[in-house]
C-alpha cells in the first residue's frame, strides 16, 4: 500500500514541481479496502493559480497520461477503472482507480495489509478508519500528504502489528475468509489416523 501512496506522491509532486509555492502543497489520498482485499484509491489536490496552470500544461491537458504514468509507476499491481474529475473553477481535481489484491490472507486466515514502513505515525479516527499525515520536501516544494485507510464494514479485530522485518502491517478478520479450512482438513486426517492407531492398539490388547 505504501508503494502505491509513494508512487502517487512522486508522480503528482513532479507534476507541480515547477510551480514555486511557499505554503505546503496539500495532497489527500483515500484508500478504501473492499471485502475482497482490493483497494479503491482516490487522490485529490487543490492547487493555486500557478500550480493549476502548470498542471494543465502537462498532465491536465492529456489525462490518459495520468493513467499511463500510474501504471508505469506501479508495475507490480493490476489497476483498473480510472476516473478523473476536475473542478476548474476551484482549481481542484481527483483521480480514482482500483488496485487489485493489495490485501492478502495469511496462513492462519488473517487478512494482512502491508504499510511497508517502519513506525509510521498512524491515528485511529474510527473503528475501521485510520489516518497518516506526513510532511516532506521534494525538490524544495514542501508537501503535506494526508492518507486515510478505510477498512470494510465487515472487518473486525483490526490491529496494527509488525512483520518479521519490523515493518508495520495491519491484520484483521473478515467474514467469509476461510483459511481455517486447511486446519480442518488436516484435523480430519489426524482424527482418522488416530482412530486407526487406537483400533490397532485395541487389537493388540487381546
Amino acid at each position, binding site marked *: 500500500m505504501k508503494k502505491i501512496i509513494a*508512487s502517487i506522491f512522486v508522480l503528482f509532486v513532479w507534476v507541480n514541481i515547477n*510551480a*514555486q509555492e*511557499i505554503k505546503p502543497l496539500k495532497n489527500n489520498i483515500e484508500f478504501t479496502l473492499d*471485502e*475482497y*482485499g*482490493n483497494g479503491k484509491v482516490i487522490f485529490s489536490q487543490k492547487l493555486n493559480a*500557478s500550480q493549476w496552470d502548470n498542471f494543465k500544461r502537462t498532465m491536465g491537458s*492529456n489525462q490518459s*497520461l495520468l493513467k*499511463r504514468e500510474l501504471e*508505469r*509507476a506501479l*508495475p*507490480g*499491481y*493490476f489497476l483498473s477503472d480510472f476516473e478523473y474529475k476536475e473542478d476548474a473553477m476551484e482549481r481542484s481535481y481527483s483521480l480514482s482507480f482500483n488496485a*487489485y*489484491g493489495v490485501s*492478502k*490472507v*495469511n*496462513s492462519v*486466515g488473517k487478512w494482512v495489509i502491508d504499510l511497508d514502513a517502519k513506525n509510521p505515525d498512524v491515528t485511529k479516527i474510527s473503528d475501521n478508519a485510520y489516518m497518516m499525515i506526513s510532511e516532506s*520536501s*521534494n*525538490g*524544495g*516544494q*514542501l508537501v503535506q500528504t494526508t492518507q486515510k485507510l478505510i477498512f470494510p464494514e465487515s472487518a473486525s479485530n483490526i490491529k496494527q502489528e509488525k512483520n518479521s522485518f519490523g515493518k508495520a502491517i495491519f491484520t484483521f478478520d473478515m467474514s*467469509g*475468509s*476461510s*483459511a481455517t*479450512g*486447511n486446519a*480442518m*482438513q488436516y*484435523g*480430519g*486426517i*489426524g*482424527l*482418522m*489416523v*488416530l*482412530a*486407526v492407531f*487406537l*483400533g490397532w492398539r*485395541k487389537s493388540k*490388547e487381546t
Partner: protein
Amino acid sequence: MKKYILSIVLFVIGAGIFAFTKLTSGSVNDLEIKIENTPVIMPACYKVYGNPEAVNGRYFLFKMMLTNKGSHPIKNVKPSYEIPKFIEETELDKIAVINPGQSVVIACYPTFKDDIVNKTTSSKEKTKIKIATAGGDKEEEFVFEMKGRNEFLYTCVNPDEIRSYRDMFDNDPLVACYVTPEDPIIKYYTQQIQEKVLKGETAAVTNDPKEAVRFLLGVYQATYLSGMVYSGTSGVPSKFDDVQSLVQSLRLPREVVTGNTGLCIELSILYSSVLMAGGLEPIIFLIPGHAYPGIKFQGQYFAIEATKIGGAGIGGRGDAEEAFKRGMEELDEFIKAAQMGDERYSIINIRELIAQQITPMELKDDQFMREKVEKIAANWVNGALPQDVNTNVAASNTGGGGGTTSGMSDYNGVVSFSYPQNWQGMNNPVQGLPQLIKAFVSPDQSGFLQVYAVPGASNGNEAMQIIKQQLYGLGQEVQYQSSGSNGNFQMYNGTTYSQNGQLPWSAYLKRTGNGMGGLIVGSYTGGHNGIFQQVIGTLR
C-alpha cells in the same frame, strides 16, 4: 466389536470433516488468470530483471492476477514458472487461500544465471507457468524474444503510448548495465592507462579538477595511441508483440578495447567503465543522434568528444586536447539546450543509476583478451600524456560570457558583474537547487559567488523564502534578515548552516523579466572581503 467403538466414531468424524473440507474447496477451474508479460528480455540487463527494487520493479518477466470466480475458497495455491534451458521450475509464492471474489497479484522477477551473457544471438523462448492448488493444477505459457547480449532496445513503450522523444528512449537508463568497471579486462586496461599513459594519477583522491580532467584525457590518449577508430554497428527498427523499437547492437567495453573500434555510445560506455574503475563519477551526455562521455567532479561537468579518434578512412583524427576542447564546446551547447527545456538533451549518470540498482553484468577473466590488452598497451610507452597537458578548457568554458580585464572576467546573465579570473565557474552546480544557475569558487574553495534566478517570485522576500525552502530540502538551514536596498537591488545578510559548517553571506536581488535574480557572495572563513567589494562594485 464394542472395544472398537471409539476408533470407529473417531474415524467417521475425521472422514466427515475431511470430506466436508474437500466438498467446500474450490477447483483450479474457478481461477480466472490474467497475465501481462514482457515481449523481450535483454540478457545484458539480467540483474535488473531479477530485482524487484530496480527501477521501481518496472522490468518484470510477467505479472499475473488470479481471481477466484467460484463460490468456494481455493486453497494451497502455489504458482511457479519455468524458462526451459534458462531457469528450472521455481515457486513464486505460497497462497494459503483465495476466497470467492478475491484477487491475488503475483509479479515474477526471474533470476537468470550469470552465463546468460554468453548468449550472442536472438531466439524465441517460452515461459511455462504452473498454478498448483489443492483442487488441481493449471498451466499457461507465453513466448518472448530473448535477445543477444549485445542487443539493446531503446524503448519498451507501446507505440500508441509514445508521447515524446524521451518515450522513444525510455530504456536509456539500462545503458548502465553495459558499463562494466568490475570486468577483469577493463580493470586491467584501466591499470595500464594509469601506469603507462598517465604515469600515475590522483584524480579520485584529491579535490583537484585538473587531475580529474587529466584522467579523462588519459583515456582518450589511450584510445588515440592504440589507433582505435570510429565505426558503426547495426541498428534496426524491430517489432516485438506490442513493442516497436530501434534495436542497437552495443559492443561491450572489453570488445571495444580488443576490437580497437567503437561507435559513439560504445566509446561513451567504455569511458564510463574506465572512469568508474578509476574512482570517478562518469556521465554520458545524450543528444539527438549522438553521445559523448564526461565526468561530474565537485558538482561540475566536464566532457570529451571521444569520437575525435576518427580514423584515416573518415578524415583523420584529433589529439586529446582537441577532443577535450570540442567536448567542452558540446557541453556548453548541451547545457544551453537542456536549460531551454529540450528533453532530447539528457544525461546518464552511471553512479546514480547503479544506486537505483541498475547493475552491470558479471564478466569472467579471459586470457586471450588480457594478452590483447597487453599488446595494445605496449604501444603507449612512448606516448604518455604530458604532465602539463592543457586542462584549462574547463576554466574558460565556465564563464558567463564577456571579456577579460586585469585579472577579472565579466559575467553577463540575470545580473552582470566582474569576478576574479582564477575563480572556477560551475553551471547549475547543485542538483535540486535549479534557482542556482552559476557559481564561482575561490581557488582555496572557501569563497563563493552564486548567481540565482528565481522565476515567479515577485519580491526579494519571496525569492529568499523559495531559496530557503530549497536549501532546507537539501539539509541546509538558512537564517537571514533584510539589510535595506541600494538602487534596484534589495539586500539581505544571512548565514547558511550545513554539515560543511557556517557560511555567512550577503545577497543582492533585483527584479528580472519573470521573477527575481541576483548575486549572493559568501565565505566559510570570513575572508575574500576585498574581492567581494570589488565584485559588488561592478554589479549591475
